[in-house]
């Protein structure tokens, strides 16, 4: 039987992180990009918790994970508000079309 250890957690978080990156890079929709960011944040959370559990760091990892969750919520709120404003301005939320900064 195989033992679930730190390595497995890290593998999961790596997969999650990669999916997040993939989502951010490939999705056109800004909301989907935000969701990719959530995935990355959660990958980081898994890392924190895993290291906290398998290392002698007490529960500081879990606490930071909680902070990250709160941060993610706040971030999501602000980001969605921005997305709404973008939509108001450009009538779509496709990130590849919103490139007026280029000029």
């Amino acid at each position, binding site marked *: 039987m195989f033992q679930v250890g730190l390595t497995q957690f890290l593998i999961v978080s790596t997969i999650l992180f990669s999916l997040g990156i993939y989502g951010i890079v490939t999705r056109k929709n800004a909301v989907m990009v935000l969701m990719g960011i959530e995935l990355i944040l959660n990958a980081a959370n898994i890392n924190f918790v895993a290291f906290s559990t398998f290392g002698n760091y007490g529960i500081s990892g879990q606490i930071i994970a909680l902070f990250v969750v709160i941060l993610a919520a706040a971030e999501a709120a602000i980001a969605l508000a921005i997305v709404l404003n973008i939509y108001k301005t450009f009538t779509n939320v496709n990130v590849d079309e*919103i490139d*007026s900064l280029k000029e």
Partner: protein
Amino acid sequence: MTESLLLNLSLLILFLPLLGFTVVLFLGKKFPKLYLFEVGIITTAFLLSVFVLFAKLSYFTAQDIGSSFTWISMSAAPLLGNINIELGIKIDNITAIMLFVVNLISFLVHVFSIEYMHGDKRYTRYFSYLGIFTFSMLGIVLTDNLLMMYIFWELVGLSSYLLIGHWFEKKSAADAAKKAFIVNRIGDIGMFIGILILFTHYKTFSFDIIFQQLSLGNIPFNSEVWLTAAGILVFMGAVGKSAQFPLHVWLPDAMEGPTPVSALIHAATMVAAGVYLVTRIFVMLTADAMLVIAVIGAFTSLVAATIALTQNDIKKVLAYSTVSQLGYMIMSLGVGAYAFAFFHLVTHAFFKACLFLGSGSVIHAMHHEQDIRNMGGLRKKLPITYFTFLISTIAISGVPLTSGFLSKDGILAGTLAFGKLTGHWLIPIMGFTVAMLTAFYMFRLVILTFHSEPRDHHKFEHAHESPFVMAAPLVILAVLSIFIWYTPNPFAPDAGWFMKDWVKTPASVVPVETQFDFMNPSSSGNHSELHREIVHSPLYTEAMHWAHYPAMALSIFLAGMGILVAYLMYQWKKINADKLAEKIKVLYNFSLNKWFLDEVYDATAISGTTNFSKFLSWFDNTIIDGAVNGTAWLGRFFSKLSDMFDTYIVDGFVNFSAFFSGFIGLSFKRLQTGKVQTYIVFVVFAVIILLLFFKPF
């Protein structure tokens, strides 16, 4: 009677005409009557000069009065060191006599001009010019140094220029004025160099100090050549001003001026300034210099006398006779007959002024007709003019009982003695020839003008005797041409007070070995004393004695011959003048055309100068302007070069960096897509690369 009184009076005489000049020149246009002021001033100056003459000759006969002050003092002048330039006046007997002569003739000419110039456009200006002339001439007479001499020398040149060109609307008058001025400059250059030779060596301009140094054996640059050169160069000034060959050409042309001016300036006073200058520097002339002077004087008198033979303009005849007589004086100084030269200067001044004023009277009467071929018979119409003219003519011809006889005879005796002592017999031969020629052409003039039949009846009918103000000066001057004023014995000038007491030949101060033997008093005496009683060597006295009677007899004979021939040719018509002229046509034309000297000068000096100035103009246009233009071209070339450097190198560099930045910007611009995803990809790959690169694990 004190010295300071005489000095002050002399200064007053000197500056009064200047005052007249200034006042009349600036106010004359507004107050046309001011010419009377000028006449009054000259009258005053004349009366004062009479007083000075008598005071000087009776109270200070053997004493010179002088005064000077330091004008410029320099302690470290470049090349010269410590110099003091002094101005001052000196009154000796010669000065006193000259003061009198100049003022008298100036006064008479002023009076004469009142009528003669009446109605002239520039009447007051004419009188103011007479004023400045008198001032300058008196300055020459009074000065005790070479610097003031030179200054006043140039001033008389200026006033002569102004007065010759009085009728400057006439081209001939304007040209004559220019010619006089320029020809005089040539002589003055020499004079200036001579003065500077003396000044450089002695560091003073004063006659007395220079002569004193000379008598102590201190000669310029320790070389007799320099001393001779200085003498001849200063004499060059006299060559110009006294119209000596080869610079005499200006004087006949100067007759374009008003006739009273010719009488005052170009006959009696200014042209005599050259002679006066030579009398001043007489003591520093070496034997060589004196010989040069004698030869130039003799040759001048001969040239001028031959030209005067054939001239037909009454004033031209008188002008050449003036040149001839001036040559006489210069020759006389050259042969060492100093006192006779000055004596002749004085007597000549009177009778020549009389002749010129007389000719003025004739010209006035004939309504500005000057050609003697159109005159004749004027004796009846102008009796006063005729008699005064005749007396002066007799005087200039050297007929006994006149002043001219006394002075001319003395000069001829001097040349004869000189010929005997040195063997230069050509000089007395020229002198005696001139004496005969003078008598001939002067009587030709008188006969053609006053005797014979009137040739232009219309003008003759209208001729009238001149009024009192014109006649009176003639009479006064004619009276002064009689012997009695100069000596009681009409055959012995030495016996008179003029020669015996007043004018004495000063001893030469140049080293004995450079003097003529006869100039050197055998009793060499005390050289440091300035006013030496002059005793010529017994040799000279003996020679003069030997020459006295032959010279007198010969000169009377020659003058008589000249007069006789003139009468034969023109009065009694025994000899046909025209046929004679035809026979010796070559000589006649040579004389009529003034030895072709003007033509020679035209061909040499004038065209030479013109060509030289043309060359200079070419040089200016081609070389100088070429150099300037070349410099400009070079400047333009270099600025173009620098412009190109700016445009292509500096600007090119700047533009290139701009272009390069733009290029870089453009290249990197492609990375900045504005798409967040792209950036994230970059970041991820960057992190991966960094991780691979630094290998933290």
